[in-house]
């Protein structure tokens, strides 16, 4: 499959008044055509910084790229000027943010906010943009678009605002859509609707999606492949099935163990991961998860493990996969919905 996006060894640092925070440290991943890649991790793991780096929306200073490469359709984005990036943002790559309550301009009608990128990127006139805006609102499932297009964001509900955000993001049929926690701020019932909508539209407009989330439930629902981030690094990556049914990194186990599951026995408790994420202004020398890892070995503290390739699609950075380390079975809590695992 053709690669839309190739991120290689990306490093993004921030200068704070205390110290340099190494938010993203050597992250590499690809996004293929028409696929959804989920980047999963807890807050502070670097997932949002990674996504905003692709758009080059990191404020600089205090942020800075400290090496690496981001290739979009074969072109290096880090070499592009701000002017060239403007032509890519909103047209080739779009973005949806977490909180629909704050991500729309409160003093501008929704219609005008959709029209802006159409006028900028498609050279449409105001009336053409309005017509296209109506179609888009219809497409994202907003009832009565004729009336809604002239309303302000505060007249929309939370779910409708996120639909409007999606309409803005998809206005120019982008090749890549970055959705940064698009459902976190929404009610559970609305969450499912928004995810369904994104999946539907992905088929219709043939876009690739990077889905940033901390919620593995969302991942199972919407993604093809998963990258698990921790401490500014990708610790494990694989297809959804591989990550859910054959996880190999203790942090992935922890994430799966802390996911509520209806199939799970009532007696089994949700497992929290003890401890706090590492301080990225002074990152650990070895594996970032070592301090919280129940299986940590001496080597973990001093050496960052390489990726062990488990299949064509699955890679994991954990010393447990070295043949010299003791055999460790994933804990019961990390096993998803037992039944499917038995079938295999």
């Amino acid at each position: 499959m053709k690669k839309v996006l190739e991120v290689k060894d990306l490093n993004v640092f921030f200068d704070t008044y205390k110290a340099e925070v190494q938010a993203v440290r050597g992250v590499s991943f690809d996004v293929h055509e028409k696929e959804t890649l989920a980047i999963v991790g807890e807050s502070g793991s670097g997932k949002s910084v990674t996504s905003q780096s692709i758009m080059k929306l990191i404020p600089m200073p205090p942020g800075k790229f400290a090496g690496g490469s981001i290739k979009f359709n074969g072109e290096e984005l880090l070499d592009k000027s701000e002017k060239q990036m403007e032509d890519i943002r909103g047209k080739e790559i779009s973005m949806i943010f977490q909180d629909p309550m704050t991500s729309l301009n409160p003093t501008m009608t929704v219609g005008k906010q959709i029209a802006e990128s159409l006028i900028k990127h498609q050279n449409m006139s105001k009336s053409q943009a309005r017509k296209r805006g109506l179609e888009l609102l219809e497409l994202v499932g907003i009832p009565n678009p004729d009336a809604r297009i002239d309303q302000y964001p505060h007249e929309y509900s939370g779910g409708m605002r996120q639909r409007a955000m999606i309409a803005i993001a998809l206005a120019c049929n982008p090749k890549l859509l970055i959705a940064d926690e698009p459902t976190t701020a929404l009610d559970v019932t609305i969450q499912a609707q928004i995810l369904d909508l994104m999946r539907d539209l992905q088929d219709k407009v043939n876009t690739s999606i990077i889905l940033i989330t901390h919620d593995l439930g969302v991942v199972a629902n919407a993604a093809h492949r998963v990258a698990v981030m921790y401490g500014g690094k990708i610790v494990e990556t694989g297809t959804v099935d591989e990550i859910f049914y054959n996880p190999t990194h203790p942090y992935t186990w922890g994430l799966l163990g802390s996911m509520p599951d209806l199939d799970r026995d009532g007696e089994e408790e949700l497992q929290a991961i003890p401890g706090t994420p590492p301080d990225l202004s002074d990152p650990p020398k070895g594996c970032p998860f070592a301090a919280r890892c129940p299986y940590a070995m001496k080597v973990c503290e001093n050496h960052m493990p390489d990726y062990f390739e488990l299949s064509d699609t699955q890679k994991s950075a954990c010393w447990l996969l070295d043949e010299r380390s003791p055999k460790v079975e994933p804990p019961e809590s990390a096993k998803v919905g037992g039944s499917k695992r038995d079938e295999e």
Partner: protein
Amino acid sequence: MSQPELNRAEIEQTDFEPLVRDESDAEKISGESTSYWKDAWRRFKKNKLALFGVGVILFLAFMSFFGGPISGYDYYTNNYAITNQSPSADHWFGTDNLGRDVFSRTWYGAKISLFIGIMAALIDVVIGVIWGAVAGYFGGKVDEYMMRIADILYSLPYLLVVILLMVILPQGLWTLIIAMTFTGWINMARIVRGQVMQLRNEEYVLAARTLGANSNRIMFRHLVPNTLGPILVTLTLTIPNAIFTEAFLSYLGLGVQAPLASWGTMTNDAIGALQYYPYQLFFPAFFICLTMLAFNVIGDGMRDALDPKSRK
């Protein structure tokens, strides 16, 4: 990976033994934990401008007591033989139109200005904190009525009210302070009320109540201390405002009366003679500005230090 490729074979077998952790480490909190006030003080110390302000105020306070004695002149004796002299070795800041020593008058004015500014601000704090704490703590109808009264007073232009009060009330230093605090406390009351309303539902207040603390105790032992930050900032920023008001009123002839000297009256005298003795304006004007600037930068510095979130 960004670090040099490492040869897996180089790592020794013994490295793959489970890590033995010191249990006490697990609960160790990374980073030095410091108290709120200590932290605020550390941030304040970094603010050069605010430290400069503190230095200026300390200097002015010292000179307001010892400036007069140093010069050897008092602030009120007229000497018609030496009117309107330029600064000289005898009279370091010169003399005014009645031959009085401007140097000692300046420091006497400093005493008056600082006294009025600090007194007015303190009275504002006392009334404002009590009013705001009571309104915020009890809420409901009490709050409704108390804040309505405050709103009505607040809608009157401050300086206009002060001027009108000065017309009605007998002249004097305390009259000036009372007139200034008549509506001056409202700002403080509003800030304290907002803070108290936020805090009164916090768990530690609930805990105190379950332990049988009465309202007074909860209000002034638990709530007010936790609003101390905003109170201090407001207090500091009220002082330059009061100093300005005193100077403004004295300039209009409504403030401090002769023979008392204040920076406002000295400015007034100097502006009258601006064309002939422009340097006479310099000393009182410079010190009014310097004092207001000092308090303003201290207040800004305190706000930044106490509320790091608001720091821009």
